[in-house]
């Protein structure tokens, strides 16, 4: 049973989540001390960079196939913090990218890091590289770099697809310590199998807050936690409501054309046209005396009446019930789907649009460019 029009609920819910985020950002900016738990993969950054320094080999950072979006920017931000650590020990870095737009941004950010650390002359423009925007050409290029330069640490963070394992295993083959994070959940198991440390799920987004302790980021992270708690509470609450609803609400089920339970079930539109004929038997084992439909909002018999009114037939607690009403939209349709039929007369709220007047004053042959 649908009690509310849920059409715009998701907008409201997202706005609530945004309010959580903004509130916590303001709270953190106001000086409130907020706690972040330890994340093993991020505490390993110093260890990995230190190892590279000792071995005199480069640190490799790859954001996968991420483009210039939230994932790519977040990955580059994490790489900037790693670079900061590497710059302190003059450890060489390599950042390989598969997207030209992100390459340009990464180059500027990494250059800024060197400048901020007071060693702009140590910045090597070839340390940030665009390899290829073709997936396996990119994988081949980066794998080649891993083998040739024998990197000592590899940070694989971003959008990963089939190339994830090629790079993770190549880095493992040269003995590199690996820290990985994937926003593509299907690749997370591969990275867990192949890498030393993996940031799972939204730990990837927590990384910059964890590393920088910047109030805006920390506040945002706490806001994210609030949002997740709200979502989990909603899931639990709605599961409970749905379970109760299934027990107490009148159940709709299909009836055949004679109003009896049967196997030949026909769906008709308001105009009487046959939509489908279903010959399956829909039985719910919990209610062996009743037959149920795949969707409870689809009564079989729909008869058109005067003034857009329709009559539908369904069964309620085992009895055949007929109801009639005016169909306008989902708000007002009590139990039946709007997708089955349309009003026969134009809706007064939405009359047909007028056509645009053709401007013939400068008409010429050929098409138009807009």
């Amino acid at each position, binding site marked *: 049973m649908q009690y509310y029009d849920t059409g715009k609920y998701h907008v409201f819910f997202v706005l609530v989540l945004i309010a959580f985020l903004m509130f916590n950002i303001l709270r953190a900016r106001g000086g409130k001390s907020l706690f972040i738990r330890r994340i093993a993969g991020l505490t390993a950054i110093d260890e990995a960079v230190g190892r590279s320094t000792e071995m005199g080999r480069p640190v490799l950072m790859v954001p996968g196939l991420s483009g210039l979006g939230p994932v790519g920017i977040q990955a580059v931000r994490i790489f900037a913090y790693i670079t900061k650590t590497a710059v302190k020990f003059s450890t060489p870095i390599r950042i390989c990218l598969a997207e030209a737009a992100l390459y340009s941004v990464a180059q500027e950010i990494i250059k800024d890091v060197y400048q901020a650390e007071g060693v702009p002359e140590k910045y090597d423009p070839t340390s940030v590289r665009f390899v290829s925007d073709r997936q396996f050409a990119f994988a081949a290029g980066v794998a080649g770099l891993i083998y040739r330069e024998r990197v000592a640490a590899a940070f694989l963070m971003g959008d990963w697809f089939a190339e994830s394992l090629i790079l993770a295993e190549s880095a493992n083959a040269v003995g590199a310590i690996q820290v990985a994070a994937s926003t593509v959940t299907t690749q997370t198991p591969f990275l867990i199998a192949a890498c030393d440390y993996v940031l799972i799920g939204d730990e990837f987004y927590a990384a910059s807050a964890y590393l920088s302790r910047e109030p805006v980021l920390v506040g945002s992270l706490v806001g994210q936690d609030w949002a997740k708690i709200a979502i989990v509470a909603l899931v639990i609450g709605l599961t409970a409501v749905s379970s109760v609803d299934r027990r107490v609400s009148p159940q709709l089920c299909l009836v055949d054309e004679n109003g009896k339970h049967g196997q030949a079930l026909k769906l008709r539109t308001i105009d009487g046209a046959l939509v489908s004929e279903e010959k399956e038997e829909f039985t719910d084992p919990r209610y062996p005396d009743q037959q149920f439909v795949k969707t409870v909002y689809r009564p079989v018999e729909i008869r058109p009446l005067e003034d857009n009114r329709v009559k539908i037939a369904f069964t309620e607690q085992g009895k055949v019930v007929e109801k009639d009403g005016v169909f306008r939209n989902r708000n007002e349709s009590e139990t039946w789907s709007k997708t089955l039929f349309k009003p026969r007369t134009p809706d007064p709220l939405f009359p047909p649009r007028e056509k645009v007047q053709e401007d013939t004053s*400068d008409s010429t042959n050929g098409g138009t460019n*807009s």
Partner: protein
Amino acid sequence: MNEQQGFFHFSFPNGSPYLLAWIIIGLILSCGFVAGLFFVPKHLRRPIVVTGTFVAGFYFVLKWLWPTAQNYSETEVPRGFVERVSFNIEYLLPFVSNFTQVLAALLLGLGISSLLRIHFTQLFKKHRDWFFSLTLILSMIAMVIFGIWDWSTRMGPGADDKIAEAPGFVNFAKDLLFDGLLINLDAVMFSIIAFFIFSAAYRAFRIRSMESTILLTVALIVMLSLMGAIVGLWDDQVNNLAKSTGSDPGGIVDNLRLTTIKAWIQDTLQIPSIRAMDLGLAVGGLAMSLRLWLSIEKGVSN
């Protein structure tokens, strides 16, 4: 331009002097805008970037929040203010998309220049493995030449059919480079993943800790449930057990079937875990996008 349609309708016939004039004006304005950015005082640069980011993001926020006109058509007049705004949002969509494509194309040039700089340096200074760089540069040049040449021969009506009947040297060369070489090299890279999966699985499934033992057990069940012969033999044993214990068909013993255990693992453990991760990632993405859109995140070097 029709006043009734919206604020951003620039539609002119091909070859029209108005179209040419608008193209020239657009070019001058955009060049002037880019040149002007170089002379902007430093303290004004951030507000300009912040405003640009906000306006660009606001379009998509508006597109998501504003009621969408049903059956949008450029040939119809919007009914009222809400629909007028909605029409303009729809009309602007290709313009905004093209804008991002133009930017991406410009930035691709930067990416290629980086690639060439690295490999030309490698080549001219005869660094180790310089011949790989030479191969890359030659491949790139060959692909560009034959790609554009092939494309130019395919212009005009019926050109594709003629080439299919009697391909010329350039068509043959492009097919050889693209379908014969590049696609197959892609396939090679993809296929070696099978071996990498094997080696990664070997390391991950070694019994070193409680976690790896659980991983091994679960993986073993799922793998075995996909092997028909094993499933058949296992099911026979389950049937025998059901008979010997007098269990009803579909009773508790049925839960011991490999396919049932696998389904339980996937439906009860795997899917909820993936959804939980996706949920966290979605919220994290929302927070990150919000910070970028409102420019409330400080630079890394600050």
